[in-house]
């Protein structure tokens, strides 16, 4: 037998329900904790959701954020936050700062004149400085972006739930979506805890997590459905364990390949996209965990009707669309 890298032994027989209270219960507790952190600490919203301006400056001279603050202090701006940005891909004489300006007036955007003044003040302080990007979002748009983000997340969750319901049973749909919410809320909780910048691309990342995380869950469910037909008398819990064990090698393989790819993006992809890569990275980790430890627990809890007799609604023994080979 040729050598093969194995992430899981050929045949595993792990009881994934053994420490149910620690794994499933722990997950639920973590999810609640994420909610609390989110509620207490709030998210560090980027200008997409809060309105205001961000500027990215580059200079060959070393950055002294105090001097930056000094240069901007006389301009009568709202809140100004200045951060130095670090990234392994920067050249040795490339010093990048990110400046975030909230509008002094809550209802108005930072005006172009103010921006020009900011740029002039910065260049006066450091003639080598260049503004390499700037973004301004007015309060009207930022409000809309908040609501459209919430709508997008809800619509995606519902669409995925509807699809699962069509392809499997309603219990699977609920279990799958619970696993999704687990992944998304804990990711949001992590962003709140570390006060990482939360902007539109992070919402895109959350949406991607929704799609990715359900991917793993679906593969487990798919095997579960197959095994339910095969082992009609085996207790549901055992069929579930069997299904997860059978798919374990694949679940780990896929997670690792995806983590490798996203990890490369996280480390080498530059700081502009780092938040996005980070959210997806975390989401994939959580997604793998939740497809093994969260999704099926709810299904077990809700129970499945495994009887062969025709249902009251007149459907066949299996589910209506279950046999469609798409």
């Amino acid at each position, binding site marked *: 037998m040729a050598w*093969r890298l194995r992430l899981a032994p050929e045949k595993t027989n792990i009881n994934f329900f053994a420490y149910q209270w620690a794994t499933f219960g722990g997950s639920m507790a973590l999810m609640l904790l994420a909610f609390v952190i989110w509620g207490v600490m709030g998210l560090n919203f980027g200008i997409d959701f809060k309105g205001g301006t961000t500027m990215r400056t580059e200079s060959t001279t070393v950055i002294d954020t105090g001097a930056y603050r000094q240069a901007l202090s006389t301009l009568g701006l709202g809140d100004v936050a200045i951060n130095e940005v670090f990234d392994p891909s920067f050249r040795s004489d490339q010093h990048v700062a990110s400046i975030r300006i909230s509008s002094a007036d809550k209802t108005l955007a930072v005006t172009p004149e103010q921006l020009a003044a900011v740029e002039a003040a910065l260049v006066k302080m450091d003639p080598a400085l260049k503004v390499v990007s700037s973004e301004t979002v007015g309060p009207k748009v930022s409000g809309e972006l908040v609501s459209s983000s919430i709508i997008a997340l809800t619509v995606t969750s519902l669409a995925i739930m509807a699809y699962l319901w069509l392809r499997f049973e309603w219990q699977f749909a609920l279990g799958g979506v619970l696993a999704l919410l687990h992944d998304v809320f804990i990711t949001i909780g992590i962003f709140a805890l570390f006060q990482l910048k939360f902007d539109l691309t992070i919402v895109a990342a959350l949406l991607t997590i929704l799609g*990715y995380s359900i991917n793993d869950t679906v593969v487990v469910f798919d095997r579960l459905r197959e095994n339910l037909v095969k082992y009609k008398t085996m207790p549901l819990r055992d069929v579930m364990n069997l299904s997860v064990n059978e798919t374990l090698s694949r679940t780990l393989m*896929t997670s690792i*390949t995806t983590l*490798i790819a996203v990890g490369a993006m996280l480390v080498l992809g530059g700081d502009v996209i780092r938040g996005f890569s980070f959210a997806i990275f975390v989401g994939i980790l959580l997604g793998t965990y939740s497809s093994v430890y969260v999704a099926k627990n709810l299904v077990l809890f809700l129970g499945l009707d495994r009887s062969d007799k025709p249902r009251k609604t007149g459907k066949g023994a299996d589910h209506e669309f279950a046999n469609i080979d798409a």
Partner: protein
Amino acid sequence: MSLYTPLWKRLVIWGLVAIGVIMAVPNLFYTRVETRNDAAVAIEKSLKAGGAATPEQTSALDLWPSVMPSALVNLGLDLRGGAHLLAEVKLADVYKQRMNALWPEARDALKELRDTVGSVRREPSAPEELRISVSKPEGVQAALVKLQGLANNVVSLTGAGQKDIDVTLDGQVIVIALSPAEKLATDNRTMQQSLEIIRRRVDAAGTREPSIQRQGSDRIVIEVPGIGSAAELKAMIGTTAKLTFNQVLGRAADANTAPGAQKLVLPGNEPGEFYIVDENPVVTGEELTDAQPSFDQNNRPAVNFKFNVAGARKFGTYTGAHIGEPFAIVLDNKVISAPTIQSAITGGSGIITGNFSLEESTNLAVLLRAGALPAEMTFLEERTVGPELGQDSIDAGKIAALVGMGLVSLFMIASYGLFGSFAVVALVINMALIFGILSMIGGTLTLPGIAGIVLTIGMAVDANVLVYERIREELRTAHTPARAIEVGYERALSAIIDANFTTLITAVVLYFFGAGPVRGFAVALGIGIVTSVFTAIFVTRLLISAWFNWRKPKTLIV
């Protein structure tokens, strides 16, 4: 026993792969193909204008063979650098203009009924309506009927059979407002005009691939790659260049003078110089047919203009009746000159002087020719990305993608041996297909889009993993190798489809939810899902069956 795939199927699969790869090739020579494409566009333009191609342009054409496809993946603003603006058009401006234009018409109509209605007055009102009172209360009904006669049918598909204005009675005051159907039609017209004018102005500046799109009912997204900053872009399109000729009614000491109803106080060229002018212009810039930069008799830069027939008549009549009085040439709510009328100007042409530089007069002529924006715009969102930052992002993304792909390939080969290397071949083909399709549909690659492609690298092998794991299982249950491969592909299919379909749902939602970079991500992810299923199921299957039929192994190790 061997694995059989019908010839036609094999041809179709390899054919699709070949097309995809060929379409992707130009992207490997990005700058070269881009130079060629730019030259081709420039040549076409100059040929249309009656000119000829320059030698540099002709030699640029040879940079890339013409038999090869030359479509490239567009780079988004965050990669190429450029400016993005989200503008909101103040649609209500147009309602106001319509009402102001309707007032003289209404007044004239009621003049015919002088005996029944008495004198007619315009009452102060909200800008989008016109309130008219008559001095004889008993004549109100007659006036109402007369004014209702002014209504026309709405010119639009959906509003057919409806009137353009609603004329109602509010106590003793007649209220005229645009009907909802007409408002809708007007809004659409205003948006169309705004889009067209912005497009012309941006095109005149000669920037590459600008994208100007309507968003929702009253918004316009403008994206121009390669431009220095959003402020520059705004200067290019934001100037309304609204030209009017108004009657001067007097002068004012400062901007805060209360001018009275239907009058405006506008600043002049000199500081502290203010004019009181009639709010309703005699002629507007919309009635211009031409405008050219020129010089006045003192050899200062000026702009020559020509009116259309209606404009010329109005202007002729007005100047004939007001000889010796000053009139104001108003540009964007500023009186740029207020000459005294020397004689009736009946020829329909004239000259605008002001303290212009040559550049300003040239720009003004361009703006006047392109026409004024029908309504004012406010900018809700502005983004500028410098070209250096974009290039840094491309470089970082490229490295990340290559490293990610290398590591995933190693991992696959370590895990599945020969079958793993088939998956790697499929992965490379998959990448080529993504770029091929993006080029074909003219898709835009953004920084999150690169991340989407990298993510696809990880996820693309998922389908292979599912199949290979399944084949392993089938081998354990003592199937023959050929049977195990067949059953493996067959049984894994359902999981593959389910898993990818859910991700496709997300990509679709992301596409509709996001704009710009996020949309680029959705497109990359969506295409990646489709191509990865194709390569993982069909391409690896062909590779494996070709190998299998060649080597005919007795046992199979996956």
